[in-house]
């Protein structure tokens, strides 16, 4: 029985693994190790698999769980966020070349970290995971217009942060 359930679960998970992994990596950046987030989310999802109404919505189901896991971890480590935030700013300032291919994604994650949580989440879900606005609204339990607003504000804020970073870099490099 449990063997069959495991197989069913892994069969559901395999096609969405890459998208889920990218989401976790972007979303959990500097909050907790993304492997732990994946692992914890999978275990919870396995336990609650009976609650999944539509197998096609498995990725949303997983992401919903991972958001809650992250939120719980965030509450526990709220004090540490201060240190992390400072560290991240220093890291960005000390980035050698953000345009390097291997550092691109890391730079993006660092920049995203400076956004408010809801905006960051909406942007990751839309741009990286490839969800539609309607799906994001369901995950974030808000209206579609709210998601659109988050996306627009997030993009603006992100552009502003990137612009600042680029100007910093140009000042540092004569």
């Amino acid at each position: 029985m449990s063997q069959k359930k495991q197989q069913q679960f892994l069969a559901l998970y395999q096609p969405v693994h890459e998208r889920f992994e990218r989401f976790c990596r972007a979303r959990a950046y500097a909050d907790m190790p993304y492997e732990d987030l994946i692992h914890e989310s999978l275990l919870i999802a396995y336990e609650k698999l009976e609650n999944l109404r539509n197998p096609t919505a498995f990725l949303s189901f997983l992401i919903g769980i991972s958001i809650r896991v992250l939120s719980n971890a965030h509450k526990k480590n709220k004090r540490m966020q201060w240190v992390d935030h400072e560290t991240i700013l220093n890291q960005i300032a000390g980035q050698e070349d953000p345009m390097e291919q291997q550092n691109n994604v890391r730079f993006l994650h660092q920049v995203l970290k400076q956004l408010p949580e809801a905006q960051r989440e909406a942007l990751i879900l839309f741009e990286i995971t490839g969800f539609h606005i309607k799906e994001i609204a369901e995950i974030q339990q808000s209206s579609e217009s709210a998601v659109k607003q988050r996306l627009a504000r997030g993009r603006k804020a992100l552009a502003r942060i990137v612009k600042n970073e680029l100007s910093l870099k140009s000042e540092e490099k004569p």
Partner: protein
Amino acid sequence: MKEDKLLDNLWEAAREENPQASYEEVAKKFQAALPIAAGAGGMAWFGKYLSLNNIVLVSSLSLVTLATWWSLSSHSNTSSNRVNPLPVKNEEIIPPVALDTVEQSNPLISSDTLRSPEIQDQQVPEIKEALVPAQYPDTPSQELVLLEEEILAEQTPPRQELKIDSHAVLEPESGELPKLPKVELDHTLPKWTHYQSDFTFVITKNDGEAKVQELFKQLWDWGFLLHTKSKYRFHKSQLSYLFLWLKHENGLDFKLKGEGFERLELHVRLGSQGLVETFSYRFNQEEFTKDIPLNCVGYKTYSYGPGFRGMSGKTSINIEN
């Protein structure tokens, strides 16, 4: 803009980046952790979860366990006294004739066999006297004689053999079975001049998803149209949110939203021809709402519980026409 273009490139890179943790690794780690989660570790986690989050549940469970244990233990202790649990003495309920009757009707069960040899000689008459209750001192002993002869005399008559004619009579000419005469059935329903009935559908927060689907089906059967935006949500296996967008061909456009409610009772009133005329409902209130006609346009939101926003029972029904 330079930064926009850079951002586009960054998003593109993030989308196309190969996963750092492969599916095989993740699946292996997941499968390795499963037995622990399902086994002792799982039980420990469950215990921790229960103790931390459900103190009320744990205390009530332990109370129930304690009560069950106590009732079982007391049950087993008193089992030896169950012959006469009531404070009524045996001599009060045994009729004075019982001992004699038993002795006479069954020669094997006699005073000799029932009593020990020590008390046989002298104590038997005394015991017999003591068994006669004080309120019936003069009642003569009666013998219950089984009138076997009388019963035997009233024997039932012998069974008659039941004969069933299993031969169908065939038509002599065609050799087929005879055709039954045609009977014109009246398929028209009786014309009720006034038919009215009420139905109530109850759903509680502890009901599962099947019950919600049943509600949707019931609404459909009653002639309501459910908008696709109608939805529901479960939180910790409890129905925490229900949004019904009811429509009807008569013009009904009614949104009903409930959060954190204990129960929802939906009441419909059927009019002539068994069709829904009006409906009403109540979430946790004592009384149903007023009857809402099927040409009503409006919405109503109910929020209950400490964790929910807004006031409970916010009303804004706008009945047109």
